[in-house]
């Protein structure tokens, strides 16, 4: 199945350019960007991403020419220490090409969109110079993601993993000195920090998995590991590896319990949310599981845990989304929920379904996020227009009052209403994305979600409960998206800002249209057999056949009318309910969410949904506060008070001072000085004494001569 071919057939030699083009793009922008116009910077970055897409297409084409045989393109030697050989090798197989195409394709569209979005955003935030930095970071992200999906070993995957984590930190905290409402604050920086730290916890798990893999199998290279695993399956070790990897997946792909960073990550600009948190980075976890399919298929227990975590996350997050007011927060929890679907799918072994849903989700979620960005900017434009309108009418007093009264949140759905009149293009685009997400036939989401549900039902005896959880989550998905549509686009405008909202320029709407097309027709990637229709077999299960080359035999399931029917009915029911609550009696200005009243005695449930089930508060109390207390204790009490104040001052300094005084007073002055004085005194006295010998009398000298004679004679005699 896998063998390395000489890389001079086809376009495989272009593989390193996947990474190089974005790197060159970011270098050009970093070095020369200061002198380039905004359009030029954006064009360079988009071209870089676009070229990466072209390379992906060429690689996919070459791969199809070789009938999907995997090709590895060795690039550089990295670590060669004794027996340890870890290299940077590019792996071009069907799975990685799918990921490459999704990432670079959606990424390029988002780059183009971001030119228009950031052009306005830096002016709203009054910092035009930051435009360049955004595109540098975006290109860096694309480069890192390419490394992640094209790596031939867990090591390169991890390099990319960490790299995209860094980029998400940089981009979430892009407006690091503001908060989401535009006030001066550290809130955005804290969101970035939260993302990085939550990811770190996940990375810790992934690292443990890598260490265990290396320790047990002696290599990190995919082929070697999978061969060794299937040859000598050790369930304990492989369970450990897969479960540690799962921790990494929950971190990167925002599952329970490490999902908490993704809603906060909405602090970043909307293109960031679209690219990183909807389309590409969060799917890295899913890719990891699919890549490690040979390992997961060996341990049913770990796979079940994966599937359950996915299913639970899907339901949990969908429930939260129902109670959210911020347009992007709804989409964020929706992302978490849909990721839950994907993780559940790959946990159950339905890898093709998972990847299929990954691709379609990339299309419609990016579309939804970018459209939400368009809406937010529309509200901002309305806000500024409204303020100027006030000024123009010479109503200075009102103008000042208006600005000082409150800070305006352009993303709060309670401030919107009837925007379909003001922003029609965005409205239709958003509808396309919503219908795809809700899973209405024949939009893309219907096909991928249906395949997952079908797999869940079929494997229900091995994976009990997954089907029910996913179905309820699908119901809630349609419900909250319907709620969102009614609140944002229908009814009456609830604020004056909404009355003045403006449509977005083509540079923003055109990429969205491309995405909308993909969202509508994306289901064609993997059409199952339809009962009652005769379809030519070469358009069926294309994705499945493509991925078969990497994953081994894949069962191509035909459409099951029962499952598809139930899910469609549930979705339509949910949309109907949402119309009943939100659409029929549109919300008035300042009115609270009617769902709270509907719950009646169970209103606390709605409060829970509204407050994300207080998970963040729980983490804060259990983990973060004790940690801060410990850090404070260690730094203040142990380090400053004990070590610095007491130990240094009392022990070291005082001790040294005492020692110096002791040495100087009694020893130096007392003993040594006195000794020196005594020596001098002795010398003086002896010299005085000896001086008295010189008395000037000759006779005494003569006596001494005789004395000497006698002495010498005596010595000689009695020797």
């Amino acid at each position, binding site marked *: 199945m896998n063998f390395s071919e000489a890389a001079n057939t086809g376009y495989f030699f272009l593989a390193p350019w996947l990474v190089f083009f974005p790197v060159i793009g970011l270098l050009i922008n970093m070095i020369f960007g200061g002198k380039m116009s905004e359009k030029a910077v954006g064009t360079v970055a988009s071209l870089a991403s676009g070229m990466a897409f072209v390379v992906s297409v060429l690689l996919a084409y070459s791969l199809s020419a070789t009938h999907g045989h995997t090709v590895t393109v060795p690039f550089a030697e990295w670590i060669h220490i004794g027996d340890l050989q870890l290299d940077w090798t590019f792996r071009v197989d069907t799975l990685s090409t799918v990921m490459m195409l999704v990432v670079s394709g959606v990424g390029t569209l988002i780059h183009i969109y971001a030119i228009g979005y950031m052009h306005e955003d830096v002016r709203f935030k009054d910092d035009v110079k930051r435009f360049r930095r955004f595109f540098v970071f975006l290109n860096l992200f694309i480069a890192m993601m390419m490394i992640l999906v094209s790596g031939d070993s867990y090591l390169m995957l991890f390099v990319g993993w960490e790299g995209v984590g860094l980029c998400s930190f940089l981009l979430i905290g892009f407006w690091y000195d503001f908060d989401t409402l535009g006030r001066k604050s550290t809130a955005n920086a804290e969101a970035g920090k939260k993302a990085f730290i939550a990811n770190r916890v996940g990375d810790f798990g992934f690292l443990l998995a890598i260490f265990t893999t290396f320790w047990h199998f002696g290599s990190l290279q995919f082929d070697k590991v999978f061969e060794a695993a299937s040859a000598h399956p050790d369930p304990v070790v492989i369970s450990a590896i897969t479960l540690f990897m799962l921790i990494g997946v929950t971190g990167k792909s925002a599952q329970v319990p490490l999902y908490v960073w993704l809603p906060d990550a909405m602090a970043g600009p909307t293109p960031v949310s679209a690219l990183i948190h909807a389309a590409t980075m969060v799917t890295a976890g899913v890719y990891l599981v699919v890549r490690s399919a040979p390992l997961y298929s060996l341990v049913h227990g770990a796979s079940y845990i994966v599937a359950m975590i996915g299913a639970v996350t899907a339901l949990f997050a969908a429930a939260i989304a129902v109670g959210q007011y911020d347009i992007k927060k709804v989409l964020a929890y929706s992302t978490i929920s849909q990721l839950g679907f994907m993780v559940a799918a790959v946990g159950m072994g339905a890898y093709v379904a998972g990847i299929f849903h990954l691709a379609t989700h990339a299309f419609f979620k990016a579309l939804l996020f970018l459209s939400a960005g368009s809406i937010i900017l529309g509200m901002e434009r309305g806000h500024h227009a409204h303020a100027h309108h006030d000024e123009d009418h010479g109503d200075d007093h009102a103008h000042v009052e208006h600005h000082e009264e409150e800070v305006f949140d352009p993303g709060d759905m309670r401030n919107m209403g009837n925007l379909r009149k003001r922003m029609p293009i965005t409205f239709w685009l958003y509808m396309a994305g919503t219908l795809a997400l809700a899973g209405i036939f024949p939009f893309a989401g219907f096909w991928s979600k249906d395949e997952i549900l079908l797999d869940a039902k079929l494997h229900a005896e091995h994976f009990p409960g997954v089907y029910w959880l996913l179905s309820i989550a699908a119901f809630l998905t349609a419900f909250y998206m319907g709620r969102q549509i009614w609140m944002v686009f229908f009814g009456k405008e609830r604020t004056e800002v909404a009355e003045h909202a403006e449509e977005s320029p083509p540079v923003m709407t055109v990429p969205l249209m491309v995405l909308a097309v993909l969202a509508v027709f994306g289901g064609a990637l993997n059409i199952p057999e339809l009962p009652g229709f005769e379809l030519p077999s070469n358009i069926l299960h294309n994705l499945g056949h493509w991925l078969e080359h990497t994953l081994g035999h894949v069962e191509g399931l035909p459409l099951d009318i029962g499952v598809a029917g139930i899910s469609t009915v549930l979705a339509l029911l949910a949309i109907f309910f949402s119309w009943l609550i939100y659409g029929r009696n549109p919300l008035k200005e300042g009115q609270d969410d009617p769902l709270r009243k509907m719950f009646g005695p169970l209103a606390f449930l709605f409060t829970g949904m509204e407050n994300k089930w207080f998970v963040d508060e729980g983490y804060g109390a259990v983990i973060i506060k004790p940690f801060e207390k410990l850090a404070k204790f260690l730094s203040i009490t142990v380090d400053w008070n004990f070590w610095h104040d007491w130990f240094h001052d009392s022990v070291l300094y005082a001790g040294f001072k005492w020692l110096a005084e002791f040495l100087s007073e009694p020893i130096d002055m007392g003993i040594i000085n006195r000794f020196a004085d005594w020596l001098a005194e002795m010398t003086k006295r002896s010299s005085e004494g000896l001086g008295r010998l010189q*008395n000037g*009398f000759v*006779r*005494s000298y003569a*006596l001494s001569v*005789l*004395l000497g*004679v*006698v002495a010498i*004679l*005596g010595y000689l*005699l009695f020797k």
Partner: protein
Amino acid sequence: MTTDLILFLILAAVAIATAVGMLLSRNAVYSALFLVLNFTTVAVFYLLLGAPFIAITQVTVYAGAIMVLFLFVIMLLGTEELPERTVLPWQKPTAVFLAVVLMVEGVYLIATQKAPGLINNDPSEGFGSPQAIGNLLFDQYLLPFEVTSILLLVAMVGAIVLTNKKKKGGQS
């Protein structure tokens, strides 16, 4: 044999007595005269020891010239007794003590050494005669002889210079 011994003892006694006398006399003249006597006794000793030339030289030079010189100077400088002054009180006792010690050492030395021999009572013909002395002096000991002559010259000059009274101050 015994005559030699008796003669020796008598002469020794005389020599010692005169020496002690010289030592203890208050009067310098008496001391000089005692010393003359001592020298003469020693000259006799020389005769006994077979050194006639030396004996005559002793009498002539020592007793005759040197002691006369002494007496001249004693006369010149006065013979008064010096007044008693006790500047170095411990000088005399220490000197006596050391002399005794030296005596003891000498006795020990003489007693413990092996006897070097006896006096030759029968010297050869011409032993100690002027001819023999002269032969040796001008033959083997020529250099010391000549040097001694220079020494005498120096002494003469020195004596004259030292006793020269300065007529005008500062001129020598």
